[in-house]
């Protein structure tokens, strides 16, 4: 099945990098998934290599049965977004993937300098929990079949996602745009 990203990236998404970049990489990820943990530094490397031509978007796809802490971790990152610290939280969670119980998540919130009282209220909010559920449903509708799943300029990417493969593919796309 040729799967396409539904809905397209919008201002509701967390976007890192140049918003007008010609290349758009979307990851559906689960904070407790070890493969996503492996992808985390790879994405950083790819961003470094491609620079301003790439924007990166992260959407939540927590699979709660195998990963009981994944949903709460996703909620924590969305709550941090309300204090404009989404990516700081996203990063610290992936850097400490083995410890995602509430106490640890609170510790990370503190470490990145969140207002803890506000954070504790925000993690209970329907809008914050709803964002995680909304992302999950969009992933299902887009043909996400495991994590991490990647979409490049709206199309599901089935190639290898090692830094070398991903960078080479993105560069080849850039070249094709210039022709």
């Amino acid at each position, binding site marked *: 099945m040729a*799967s396409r990203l539904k809905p397209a990236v919008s201002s509701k998404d967390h976007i890192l990098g140049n918003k007008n970049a010609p290349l758009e990489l979307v990851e559906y990820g689960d904070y407790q998934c070890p493969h996503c943990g492996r992808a985390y530094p790879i994405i950083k490397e790819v961003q470094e290599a491609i620079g301003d031509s790439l924007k990166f978007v992260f959407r939540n796809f927590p699979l709660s049965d195998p990963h009981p802490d994944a949903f709460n971790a996703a909620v924590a990152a969305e709550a941090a977004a309300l204090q404009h610290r989404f990516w700081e939280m996203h990063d610290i969670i992936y850097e400490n993937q083995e410890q995602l119980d509430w106490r640890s998540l609170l510790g990370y919130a503190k470490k990145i300098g969140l207002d803890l009282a506000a954070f504790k209220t925000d993690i209970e909010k329907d809008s914050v929990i709803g964002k995680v559920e909304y992302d999950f449903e969009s992933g299902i509708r887009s*043909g996400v*079949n*495991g994590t991490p799943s990647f979409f490049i300029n709206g199309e599901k990417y089935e190639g290898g996602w090692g830094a070398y493969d991903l960078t080479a593919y993105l560069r080849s796309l850039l070249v094709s745009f210039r022709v």
Partner: protein
Amino acid sequence: MLAIGTQGPDFELNSTPDQKLKLSELRGKRVILAFYPADWSPVCGDQMTLYNATLKFFSKHNAQLVGISVDSKWCHLAYSQNNKFHFPLLADFEPKGMVARLYGVYDEKEGECQRALFVLDEKGIIRWNYLSPVGLNPGADGILDALEELDNL
């Protein structure tokens, strides 16, 4: 693989060690038949785990998911408990692969079901089907698109 528009042949298989499920008992509901090669193999795990997380979206469309492989009822029980599945896994075990053969999705060489999906309507008529490459989890988007299309009829 049985074509769209055909009546899905009825069958009865074990859903637990002491219970059987008959397809025709599900009339009035839409049924998603997910044939898969084997319990415990990594790709299947992903597919069934994904569907387990997708159940609430299926039920919004009045659809019941059923997984089918040639594994025994005891194997299914262990697999299902291990992964906390909330949908039945049917054992197409004796005669081996009979239901998969009925639906035209039996892999004779491997002695396993192919990775195949069918969506049946409330009357048991096949309204959508999909045969996936065996190593690739087909996701749930095709199923949901098909269910949505049925809603719009």
